[in-house]
C-alpha cells in the first residue's frame, strides 16, 4: 500500500539551514504518536504506512500500541528528520509529537 502513497516533500531548504546547527548527527529526537478517541484504527495504520513506508503488519503493530498503551515510539531520529515526520503525521491529523530523549 505504501506504493500508492504520494511522495512526501523533503523538509524546507531554508529551514534545513537553520536546523543544521541543531546537532544534525544527534539521533536523540523521538517521534511519538499519542492515542485519541477520534482517529480510526484503519486510518492510523494507513498513515503510518504512508509516512514511514512501513509494511502493513508493522504499521498495525504500532497502531495497536498507540491504542492499547496510549502511545507508541515511532522513530528515533535526528532533529531534522524527526521534525519532518511530526509535520507529516500532524498533516494527517494524528497527535504526534517530538521529544528529546533523556
Amino acid at each position: 500500500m505504501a506504493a500508492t502513497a504520494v511522495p512526501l516533500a523533503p523538509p524546507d531548504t531554508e529551514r534545513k539551514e537553520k536546523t543544521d546547527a541543531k546537532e544534525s548527527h544527534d539521533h536523540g529526537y523521538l517521534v511519538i504518536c499519542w492515542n485519541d478517541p477520534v482517529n480510526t484504527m484503519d486510518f492510523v495504520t494507513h498513515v503510518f504506512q504512508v509516512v514511514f513506508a512501513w509494511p502493513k503488519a508493522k504499521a498495525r503493530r504500532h497502531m495497536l500500541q498507540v491504542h492499547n498503551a496510549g502511545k507508541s515510539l515511532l522513530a528515533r531520529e535526528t532533529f531534522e528528520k524527526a521534525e519532518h515526520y511530526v509535520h507529516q503525521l500532524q498533516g494527517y491529523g494524528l497527535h504526534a509529537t517530538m521529544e528529546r530523549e533523556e
Partner: protein
Amino acid sequence: MKFIRSQKPRQAGSPFVFDIGTREKAVLLETLRLYPLLDASYHQFSRRPKTIGKADQEWLEEAMDQQRLDHKKKLGQLFRDNRCFFKPGKHGFRFSLTGEEMEWMLRVLNEIRVGSWVRLGRPEMEAAHALSLTSGQARFLAAMELSGYFQAVLLEAFS
C-alpha cells in the same frame, strides 16, 4: 459509495474508481464544505516544549496553515467544477481519484472528523452519542460520522 476498481499492479496516476449515488455525492460535497474546522493552534509540536523550542512550534503552525490553504484551494476547484471527479454512471456517478487525490481526500475528511470532535468537546466516542446537543452541535456529530464513513470507504480501496 462503493469501491469499483483500481489498476493492479498500481501505476502512478491510475485512478481509484467508486460508484456513488446522487444523494450520497451531495452529502459528500456538503461534508467537504465544512473544511477547514481546525486552526493552527490545535497542533502541538511537543509535550515538553521547553526541550524543543518556541520557534519549532511556530514552524509547525505555519506549515499546517499552509497545508490548509493548499487543501482549501483544491477543494475550491472541486466545488467549482467537479466533472473530472464525477462522471455520470449507472447508479448515479463514477467518482475517480488518483493515488495523490486519495491522500488529499483522506486528509481533508480526517480534519473534518477531528475538527467536529473538537467542537463537540473532545468526547470519548461512546459518550458522543449520549451528549445532549444543540442543533449546531448535531451538525458536527453528523459531520464526524459522515467523514468517518467516507474515509472508511476510501481506505478499503487500498486493501
